[in-house]
């Protein structure tokens, strides 16, 4: 009888992988987008089992609450998304399957044979420690993150403004 934590892990992994497979293979893009919900929630659960409580909460807030809704909006507001023509041919699935299997076998073998350094994790909550790290040792990446976001925002404005102009030109 496996331990409770192993069972929880297996359940969460199955949820994550199953939804991810559905995202990749579903023919209906809206179903794909909705299936992302399972992946995001599964990942959040995995974070909890790893004692990363703050990360789990952020995952739910940002990905489930924000990104997923955004993706759904994008899918539903894009006109004629269902009758999209794929211009690039899909390569041979057999070759891809063989390659992916080989990579998977190598990764699995190396991962199971490696003596990973394991250490006991301190108990939750981790929020205070994260806060201190971000305002101390990791201040630079924190601020750099805001520069990435600033740049991305300017870029988004540039690209979106073109769309508006195009709509205006058609009229």
């Amino acid at each position, binding site marked *: 009888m496996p331990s409770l934590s192993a069972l929880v892990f297996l359940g969460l992994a199955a949820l994550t992988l199953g939804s991810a497979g559905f995202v990749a293979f579903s023919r209906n893009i809206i179903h794909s987008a909705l299936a992302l919900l399972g992946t995001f929630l599964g990942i959040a659960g995995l974070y909890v089992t790893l004692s990363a409580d703050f990360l789990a909460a952020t995952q739910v807030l940002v990905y489930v609450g924000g990104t997923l809704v955004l993706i759904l909006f994008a899918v539903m507001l894009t006109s004629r998304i269902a009758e999209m023509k794929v211009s690039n041919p899909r390569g041979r699935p057999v070759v891809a399957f063989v390659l992916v299997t080989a990579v998977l076998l190598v990764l699995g073998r190396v991962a199971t*044979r490696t003596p990973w350094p394991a250490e006991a994790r301190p108990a939750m909550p981790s929020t205070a420690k994260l806060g201190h790290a971000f305002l101390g040792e990791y201040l630079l990446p924190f601020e750099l*993150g805001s520069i990435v976001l600033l*740049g991305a925002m*300017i*870029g988004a404005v*540039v690209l979106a*403004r073109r769309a508006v102009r*195009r709509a205006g030109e058609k009229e």
Partner: protein
Amino acid sequence: METRTFDNVASLAYFAPELGLIAAVLLLVVWDLASPARLKIAGLVVISLAALAWSGGMGAYFLAKDAGPHELFHGLLAFDRFSNLFRVIFAFVTGAIVLFSVPPRGPGVAPELRRDQGEFFTLILVLSLGMNLMAASRHLLLIYLSLELVSVMSFVLAGFKINDARSSEGALKYVIFGGVASGIMLYGMSWIFGITASMHLGECAARIAALTAQQGKVPEVVFVGTACMLAGFGYKISAAPFHMWTPDVYEGAPTPVTAFLSVGPKAAGFAVLVRFFSDALGAGSASPAVATPWPVLAGCLAMATMTIGNLSALGQENVKRMLAYSSIAHAGYMLLGFSVFSDAGVAAIAFYIVTYCFMNLGAFMVVMAVAEQSGGDETLSAFRGLGRRAPLVAAAMVVFLVSLTGLPPTAGFVGKFYLFSALLTAGGAWRWVLAIVGVVNSVISLFYYARVLRAMYLEKGERTEPVAVRPLLGATTCALAVPTLLLGVYWGPVYDFVASSLSMLR
């Protein structure tokens, strides 16, 4: 001076070049909003150039003063001669691109760039900041963040052309490919972090060295992690098999952006690649008793990259697309020097990057000058008869192309000479194979560069009237051609300077 680790506040003095860039970015946004229309472009260019002069000047000042090496921000960033050298290089490249993107004045010529000039210069400066950080990162988190900063800006810049399906297609491919490459790189980083329990390159190095000594070989897990991380680095330098985005993006993007992407982020990719391998993996200082897989891995990448780049360039009619493939091939040549993992190899790469900046920027500038006068035509036919229609620009193009081929008396020859000599000094059958493949590739490249030369001088175009090249473009082109020639005859001081500026924090 002993190496010191500074905290956040004490680091700021050594972080001044980047602070200047950030200030200029914010200033550009405000200027774009508030300036009078007449002064807008001039102001944008002046602010950008001033910030770049500050960044490059501070880098040169640190080099001259021999400051450092220090660890900044609790060891996240390295402050050493290596990072300062790249600050100078990036400031120069970005400055050239800023001049390059000044829109033509007067009516009649359709501007290739869209009307959002302020945003364009802002994004270019942010990209420059990201490249500076890439060359200085000593922490996996920072490597990822700075790489992503450069990537996101590149995506937007690649899609900057208005109403152009190719530009949009290139940008979208770039986004998808960049996302996948970053994902694989992050996955590789998680393996490295898992085995070393640290994201700091120095601590990774200590742990990996201990494991290597314990097992008598490089642990498999480090190999897997590094191979995955190579996806991210290889995508930045457009090495095969991560090069697929290059031709479409380079062809679709506005020419100044193409020139920038082919030089700046590529150099930054090499900087972070060299630092990661010599810092975290200790590939340059490994004891000879332990056989490392890195030379073979890098050698295979180099051969594949060169060959794919050169063979694909052969049949291209569009000069921009041809230069895109040629830039893949040049990444392959630089990987040759990388595969040696010696100080001579790193010096050869750095010197090649310097020469490559001049010749590649110059070649793209000529393409832009020609395309501007022929209604956006970038194919070979636009170059027909250029030798008579615009003698000076055509002569500059000859210099750039000869240099790209790697023939004397140009900078490209000297750069390639150092690459091959580093390779052959290291010795061994494998190095000889690499060198022979490299030479064969150089010969192949002569074919497609010569096609442009033939079109310019031997073929007659439909139009015979002289081409009026904008003075700014013409002057910058000549300013790039002179060092390309000069470095081919008298390269000693520059090479010595570059080679002495490669000491890295370890």
